């Protein structure tokens, strides 16, 4: 549908006003909200993610597009909720205990939201038990752990162990990220995956959840 392609294009260009106007137009003309979301917004953000991966878009431009998507979702979300529509998945993210860096985590959250996932961000310097409580409360499909220091990255293992001790380990996939992290480290501490950056995090999350797109 041409209008959905236009929506994706306006989103890619970060044209918030045009995205808003076209979203409303599509809703008013009876296009299902889920269709607008999937074939317009998420499709547009997928192109954005690809362009960022290929070095064709800078982060401010990506965030402009993400902002346009967020604006559109303010129209769509009540309609989606009314239909009982589910997000692609709920992701809980936080920086582990002792660590106060959050730019990387915030970027991951933004990129995942752009890809249609629901994000619960529990902040920084998060104690393992707070992760456990948040997992019990929010029942995410995936937990993202972030650390920037070699002295705090071990708290990723402490967190994973705490999740296991609480009997919740089988309920979630755990993804780690941050400068000192690596796939090797992820394997050593029993995480389900590692992502080098925010763009790849989206791919990794889709992979862990068995999404093909």
């Amino acid at each position: 549908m041409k209008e959905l392609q236009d929506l994706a294009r306006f989103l890619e260009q970060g044209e918030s006003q045009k995205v808003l106007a076209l979203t409303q137009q599509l809703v008013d003309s009876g296009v299902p909200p889920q269709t607008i979301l999937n074939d317009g917004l998420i499709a547009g953000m997928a192109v954005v993610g690809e362009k960022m991966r290929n070095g064709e878009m800078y982060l401010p431009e990506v965030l402009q597009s993400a902002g346009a998507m967020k604006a559109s979702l303010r129209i769509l979300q009540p309609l989606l909720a009314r239909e009982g529509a589910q997000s692609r998945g709920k992701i809980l993210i936080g920086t582990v205990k002792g660590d106060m860096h959050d730019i990387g985590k915030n970027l991951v959250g933004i990129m995942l939201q752009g890809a249609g996932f629901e994000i619960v961000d529990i902040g920084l310097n998060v104690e393992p038990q707070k992760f456990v409580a948040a997992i019990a409360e929010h029942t995410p499909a995936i937990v993202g752990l972030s650390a920037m220091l070699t002295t705090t990255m071990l708290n990723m293992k402490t967190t994973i162990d705490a999740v296991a001790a609480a009997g919740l380990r089988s309920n979630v996939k755990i993804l780690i990220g941050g400068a000192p992290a690596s796939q090797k480290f992820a394997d050593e501490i029993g995480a389900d995956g590692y992502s080098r950056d925010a763009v790849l995090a989206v791919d990794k999350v889709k992979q862990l959840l068995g999404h093909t797109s």
Partner: protein
Amino acid sequence: MRTIFKTLAIPDQQQLMFGRTPKPLTCGFGLKLGNGQVYPELNFTLPTMRLEETNWGAVVAQYEEIGSIIERAAARLKPPGLMAEFELLPPMTEHPSWGAELTAVLLRHLEHLHQETGIACALRVTPTDIRDVTKPPALRSGKPLELLLESFEQCAAAGAHVLSIESVGGKEVHDEALLYGDIEGVIFALGVLASRDMEFLWEKIVGTCSKHNVVPGGDSACGFANTAMQLAGQGMLPEVLASVVRAASCVRSLVAYECGAFGPSKDCAYEGPVIKAITGAPIAMEGKSASCAHFSPVGNVAAAMCDLWSNESVQNVRLLSGPAPEAYFELLVYDCRLFNQALETKTETMYQNLLVSSDIHLSPQAFVLSPESTMRIATAVVKESGHYAQTLAAAKEATSLLSEGVRHKELQLNSRETEWLERMTRELDALPSDEQEMLATMQERYGHLFADDSYGF
């Protein structure tokens, strides 16, 4: 009492040279900075390990080992002098006695080195700014501030020779502005918020230093400009944006000197050359030999005006050759031999030219770090009054420098970088000359991120 810098301490670009300052200083065990030699500054940290009370003995053992490594390596390599930098990790700042204990450990090793070999040396101690643990950060009150100031107090009492910090006031807004490429927000964060916090914090740090006869060694815009540099290095931000942030960030770091700091500046303060040109204080810099900690496009040019040459941070792990701190100390010592040989043979200008010309045509971030760019940015800063106006002037000068560089074919930018440079030039030109005029807009845009009382509003 504040010092307001209205002129350049080094008005002649030819005098803006590594190893020399108009205001040399002696610190520690006879270490004379800016007095005709460049010294290595070894910056080290723990390997991957827990940092808690239950394994505190193992942590202390690591620093004992690092101290021994420094002694052994210095005896072997015979530098004319050295600075050792101990950067506290957050838990060490949260427990001030921990930082003090490790300060004493390292000091003992340096004192022994000096006694045994006569090698001049000093210890720089850098507590972590832990005030941003809450969102929005409470910068002027609360437990994190108390612990931070207590850390300074106890590390000074334990014998630190130089005290520094990488303070984060304004970062909560700067991070957001940076991610969105909002140069107006960047100027607000640096010129208004960060500068106010620097005044607040450095008055206290200088007071502590005076009490204990310790050198107040300056701050770093690491959390601002180095964050931008790293994001640009990952392709997430335009390099020209990182370049403008670098230039603009010098003003907030200068505030430490207005409050009484007299150097040496912090190694990750790549804005150090501008500080040196304005204040005459010696500076520490890092570049190619800091690749153990992070990569950068300014590996050589960053050395052009340094008085201390640092590796930024190296973990105490084993490499093929031996302990990583020893390996990187050796690298720094060899770098310094070249600096000092150039100074001794009066070929320093030629060597500086090589350092500069090898980098500046390849990256806008390197371009703004050249001695020529440094002088222009420093001149633009001292011409203005007030931190906001100075920050704006520095940013505008950076865009002018880059545009001229492209016109004169000294620098090549791709079309995306060129678009961003043109955009920033327009946006900076549109900014008001008075910070009061932008406050209302910034409050609306970023007011949810910062607390008014953290900045004295």
